[in-house]
Protein backbone atom coordinates (compact mmCIF):
# COMPACT_ATOMS: atom_id res chain seq x y z
CA UNK A 1 0.00 0.00 0.00
CA UNK A 2 3.04 2.26 -0.16
CA UNK A 3 2.43 5.13 -2.49
CA UNK A 4 4.66 7.64 -4.16
CA UNK A 5 5.16 10.60 -1.89
CA UNK A 6 3.38 13.71 -3.02
CA UNK A 7 0.52 11.85 -4.59
CA UNK A 8 -2.66 10.99 -2.80
CA UNK A 9 -2.23 7.53 -1.27
CA UNK A 10 -4.37 4.94 -2.89
CA UNK A 11 -4.79 1.22 -2.52
CA UNK A 12 -4.10 -1.23 -5.33
CA UNK A 13 -7.70 -0.68 -6.43
CA UNK A 14 -7.12 3.06 -6.67
CA UNK A 15 -9.07 3.88 -3.52
CA UNK A 16 -8.20 6.77 -1.23
CA UNK A 17 -7.25 5.97 2.37
CA UNK A 18 -8.69 8.36 4.97
CA UNK A 19 -7.43 8.78 8.53
CA UNK A 20 -8.11 10.74 11.70
CA UNK A 21 -4.56 10.88 13.04
CA UNK A 22 -4.49 14.69 13.34
CA UNK A 23 -7.68 14.87 15.40
CA UNK A 24 -6.61 11.99 17.66
CA UNK A 25 -3.15 13.48 18.21
CA UNK A 26 -4.54 16.91 19.06
CA UNK A 27 -7.12 15.38 21.42
CA UNK A 28 -4.23 13.85 23.35
CA UNK A 29 -2.26 17.10 23.39
CA UNK A 30 0.74 15.56 21.64
CA UNK A 31 3.03 17.81 19.64
CA UNK A 32 4.02 16.65 16.18
CA UNK A 33 7.59 16.05 17.35
CA UNK A 34 6.51 14.05 20.43
CA UNK A 35 4.18 11.95 18.32
CA UNK A 36 6.90 11.41 15.71
CA UNK A 37 9.33 10.24 18.42
CA UNK A 38 6.71 7.92 19.89
CA UNK A 39 6.00 6.17 16.59
CA UNK A 40 9.62 6.29 15.41
CA UNK A 41 9.40 8.50 12.32
CA UNK A 42 10.65 11.92 11.24
CA UNK A 43 8.33 14.82 12.17
CA UNK A 44 7.78 15.63 8.49
CA UNK A 45 6.38 12.14 7.99
CA UNK A 46 3.70 12.89 10.60
CA UNK A 47 2.58 15.80 8.40
CA UNK A 48 2.38 13.53 5.36
CA UNK A 49 0.37 10.98 7.37
CA UNK A 50 -2.03 13.59 8.76
CA UNK A 51 -2.66 15.17 5.36
CA UNK A 52 -3.36 11.72 3.94
CA UNK A 53 -0.48 12.03 1.49
CA UNK A 54 1.19 8.87 2.73
CA UNK A 55 -0.38 5.59 3.77
CA UNK A 56 1.63 3.84 6.49
CA UNK A 57 2.73 0.23 6.43
CA UNK A 58 0.83 -2.20 8.64
CA UNK A 59 3.59 -2.06 11.27
CA UNK A 60 3.50 1.74 11.42
CA UNK A 61 -0.31 1.78 11.44
CA UNK A 62 -0.28 -0.60 14.43
CA UNK A 63 2.31 1.56 16.20
CA UNK A 64 0.20 4.68 15.58
CA UNK A 65 -2.91 2.95 16.90
CA UNK A 66 -1.04 1.83 20.03
CA UNK A 67 0.31 5.33 20.75
CA UNK A 68 -3.09 6.94 20.19
CA UNK A 69 -4.96 4.19 22.03
CA UNK A 70 -7.37 3.53 19.17
CA UNK A 71 -7.92 0.57 16.88
CA UNK A 72 -6.58 0.64 13.35
CA UNK A 73 -10.17 0.59 12.05
CA UNK A 74 -10.97 3.68 14.12
CA UNK A 75 -8.00 5.54 12.68
CA UNK A 76 -7.99 4.48 9.03
CA UNK A 77 -10.82 3.95 6.61
CA UNK A 78 -11.48 3.54 2.92
CA UNK A 79 -14.56 5.74 3.38
CA UNK A 80 -14.44 9.41 4.39
CA UNK A 81 -14.37 9.64 8.17
CA UNK A 82 -16.92 11.84 9.98
CA UNK A 83 -15.50 14.97 11.57
CA UNK A 84 -15.08 14.62 15.33
CA UNK A 85 -17.84 16.36 17.28
CA UNK A 86 -16.78 19.58 19.02
CA UNK A 87 -16.65 19.31 22.83
CA UNK A 88 -19.96 20.13 24.57
CA UNK A 89 -20.07 23.46 26.40
CA UNK A 90 -21.13 23.19 30.03
CA UNK A 91 -24.62 24.70 30.42
Amino acid at each position, binding site marked *: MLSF*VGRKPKTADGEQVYNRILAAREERGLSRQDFADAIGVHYQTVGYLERGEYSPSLVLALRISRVLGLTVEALFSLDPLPRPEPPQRPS
Partner: protein
Amino acid sequence: MSRWSQIAERNRATVAQNAERVLADTSYDRFRTPRALSMLVVAFVVTTAMMPICWLAWGSLAGVASIFPCLAAFLLMRVAVRSQADLPDEVLDERMRAERDSVYVGAFRLVAAVVFVAVNAAFIAVAFRDEGEATITFDYDSVSAVFWPLLALLLGAPSLVLAFRQVRERAAG
Protein backbone atom coordinates in the same frame (compact mmCIF):
# COMPACT_ATOMS: atom_id res chain seq x y z
CA MET B 1 34.79 -8.12 18.02
CA SER B 2 37.34 -7.83 15.21
CA ARG B 3 39.09 -4.60 14.34
CA TRP B 4 37.08 -4.26 11.10
CA SER B 5 33.81 -4.81 12.93
CA GLN B 6 34.76 -2.09 15.41
CA ILE B 7 35.56 0.31 12.57
CA ALA B 8 32.30 -0.55 10.81
CA GLU B 9 30.34 -0.07 14.04
CA ARG B 10 32.00 3.30 14.71
CA ASN B 11 31.32 4.35 11.12
CA ARG B 12 27.64 3.36 11.43
CA ALA B 13 27.32 5.34 14.68
CA THR B 14 28.91 8.42 13.11
CA VAL B 15 26.67 8.23 10.04
CA ALA B 16 23.58 7.85 12.26
CA GLN B 17 24.64 10.81 14.41
CA ASN B 18 25.31 13.04 11.39
CA ALA B 19 22.10 11.93 9.68
CA GLU B 20 20.06 12.82 12.76
CA ARG B 21 21.63 16.29 12.77
CA VAL B 22 21.08 16.79 9.03
CA LEU B 23 17.44 15.63 9.16
CA ALA B 24 16.63 17.95 12.06
CA ASP B 25 18.61 20.89 10.70
CA THR B 26 16.63 24.07 10.08
CA SER B 27 19.49 26.47 9.41
CA TYR B 28 19.17 26.03 5.62
CA ASP B 29 15.39 26.37 5.48
CA ARG B 30 15.75 29.41 3.21
CA PHE B 31 16.93 26.99 0.49
CA ARG B 32 13.91 24.73 1.06
CA THR B 33 11.20 27.07 -0.21
CA PRO B 34 9.66 26.10 -3.59
CA ARG B 35 11.22 29.18 -5.20
CA ALA B 36 14.71 28.49 -3.82
CA LEU B 37 14.50 24.80 -4.73
CA SER B 38 13.41 25.67 -8.28
CA MET B 39 16.34 28.05 -8.60
CA LEU B 40 18.76 25.39 -7.35
CA VAL B 41 17.37 22.83 -9.82
CA VAL B 42 17.78 25.30 -12.69
CA ALA B 43 21.26 26.34 -11.48
CA PHE B 44 22.42 22.73 -11.31
CA VAL B 45 21.07 21.90 -14.78
CA VAL B 46 22.56 25.04 -16.34
CA THR B 47 25.98 24.69 -14.68
CA THR B 48 26.15 21.01 -15.64
CA ALA B 49 25.24 21.79 -19.25
CA MET B 50 27.81 24.60 -19.34
CA MET B 51 30.70 22.32 -18.36
CA PRO B 52 31.29 20.57 -21.73
CA ILE B 53 30.89 23.90 -23.53
CA CYS B 54 33.54 25.50 -21.31
CA TRP B 55 35.95 22.57 -21.73
CA LEU B 56 35.56 22.33 -25.51
CA ALA B 57 35.12 25.97 -26.48
CA TRP B 58 37.37 27.84 -24.06
CA GLY B 59 39.93 25.28 -22.90
CA SER B 60 41.21 23.86 -19.63
CA LEU B 61 41.15 26.98 -17.49
CA ALA B 62 37.50 27.76 -18.28
CA GLY B 63 36.73 24.06 -17.91
CA VAL B 64 38.19 23.83 -14.43
CA ALA B 65 36.47 27.11 -13.48
CA SER B 66 33.13 25.68 -14.67
CA ILE B 67 33.33 22.85 -12.12
CA PHE B 68 32.98 25.15 -9.11
CA PRO B 69 29.56 26.71 -9.83
CA CYS B 70 28.22 23.23 -10.54
CA LEU B 71 29.73 21.91 -7.31
CA ALA B 72 28.20 24.81 -5.36
CA ALA B 73 24.76 24.19 -6.92
CA PHE B 74 25.07 20.46 -6.18
CA LEU B 75 26.05 20.97 -2.53
CA LEU B 76 23.30 23.53 -1.90
CA MET B 77 20.72 21.32 -3.57
CA ARG B 78 21.88 18.37 -1.47
CA VAL B 79 21.58 20.41 1.72
CA ALA B 80 18.14 21.66 0.64
CA VAL B 81 16.83 18.09 0.36
CA ARG B 82 18.59 17.12 3.63
CA SER B 83 20.85 14.62 1.82
CA GLN B 84 17.90 12.26 1.93
CA ALA B 85 18.90 10.61 -1.34
CA ASP B 86 22.28 9.62 0.09
CA LEU B 87 21.35 8.41 3.57
CA PRO B 88 21.31 4.70 4.48
CA ASP B 89 18.19 2.73 5.42
CA GLU B 90 18.89 2.71 9.17
CA VAL B 91 18.48 6.47 9.56
CA LEU B 92 15.39 6.96 7.39
CA ASP B 93 11.82 6.14 8.28
CA GLU B 94 9.62 4.09 5.95
CA ARG B 95 8.20 7.08 4.05
CA MET B 96 11.66 8.51 3.47
CA ARG B 97 12.96 5.12 2.35
CA ALA B 98 10.06 4.77 -0.08
CA GLU B 99 10.65 8.31 -1.34
CA ARG B 100 14.40 7.73 -1.71
CA ASP B 101 13.89 4.46 -3.58
CA SER B 102 11.36 6.04 -5.90
CA VAL B 103 13.77 8.95 -6.47
CA TYR B 104 16.49 6.52 -7.58
CA VAL B 105 14.17 5.07 -10.20
CA GLY B 106 13.52 8.60 -11.45
CA ALA B 107 17.25 9.41 -11.35
CA PHE B 108 18.10 6.29 -13.37
CA ARG B 109 15.53 7.24 -16.01
CA LEU B 110 16.88 10.79 -16.11
CA VAL B 111 20.50 9.66 -16.57
CA ALA B 112 19.47 7.10 -19.19
CA ALA B 113 17.47 9.73 -21.08
CA VAL B 114 20.28 12.31 -21.00
CA VAL B 115 22.89 9.77 -22.14
CA PHE B 116 20.54 8.49 -24.86
CA VAL B 117 19.89 11.99 -26.18
CA ALA B 118 23.58 12.98 -25.99
CA VAL B 119 24.78 9.86 -27.83
CA ASN B 120 22.09 10.19 -30.49
CA ALA B 121 22.87 13.88 -30.95
CA ALA B 122 26.52 12.95 -31.47
CA PHE B 123 25.56 10.29 -34.03
CA ILE B 124 23.31 12.71 -35.90
CA ALA B 125 25.98 15.43 -35.83
CA VAL B 126 28.51 13.00 -37.29
CA ALA B 127 26.09 11.63 -39.90
CA PHE B 128 25.16 15.08 -41.21
CA ARG B 129 28.68 16.47 -41.19
CA ASP B 130 29.57 18.24 -44.41
CA GLU B 131 33.35 18.21 -44.23
CA GLY B 132 34.87 14.74 -44.44
CA GLU B 133 35.01 12.22 -41.62
CA ALA B 134 34.59 13.15 -37.98
CA THR B 135 37.49 12.44 -35.69
CA ILE B 136 37.50 11.95 -31.96
CA THR B 137 40.23 13.84 -30.18
CA PHE B 138 41.33 11.90 -27.15
CA ASP B 139 42.95 14.73 -25.23
CA TYR B 140 42.57 16.10 -21.71
CA ASP B 141 39.93 18.71 -22.58
CA SER B 142 37.76 16.32 -24.59
CA VAL B 143 37.83 13.63 -21.91
CA SER B 144 37.12 16.25 -19.22
CA ALA B 145 34.21 17.58 -21.29
CA VAL B 146 32.59 14.16 -20.98
CA PHE B 147 33.83 13.13 -17.54
CA TRP B 148 32.81 16.13 -15.42
CA PRO B 149 29.21 16.55 -16.67
CA LEU B 150 28.68 12.80 -16.45
CA LEU B 151 30.04 12.73 -12.89
CA ALA B 152 27.82 15.71 -11.96
CA LEU B 153 24.82 13.99 -13.49
CA LEU B 154 25.47 10.67 -11.76
CA LEU B 155 26.06 12.25 -8.35
CA GLY B 156 23.44 14.95 -8.62
CA ALA B 157 20.55 13.14 -10.32
CA PRO B 158 18.98 11.70 -7.13
CA SER B 159 19.01 15.05 -5.31
CA LEU B 160 17.87 16.80 -8.50
CA VAL B 161 14.87 14.49 -8.87
CA LEU B 162 14.05 14.79 -5.17
CA ALA B 163 14.25 18.61 -5.28
CA PHE B 164 12.13 18.70 -8.44
CA ARG B 165 9.49 16.47 -6.85
CA GLN B 166 9.40 18.61 -3.72
CA VAL B 167 8.84 21.72 -5.82
CA ARG B 168 6.05 20.01 -7.77
CA GLU B 169 4.49 18.62 -4.60
CA ARG B 170 4.49 21.98 -2.80
CA ALA B 171 3.17 23.75 -5.88
CA ALA B 172 0.29 21.25 -5.96
CA GLY B 173 -0.49 22.28 -2.40
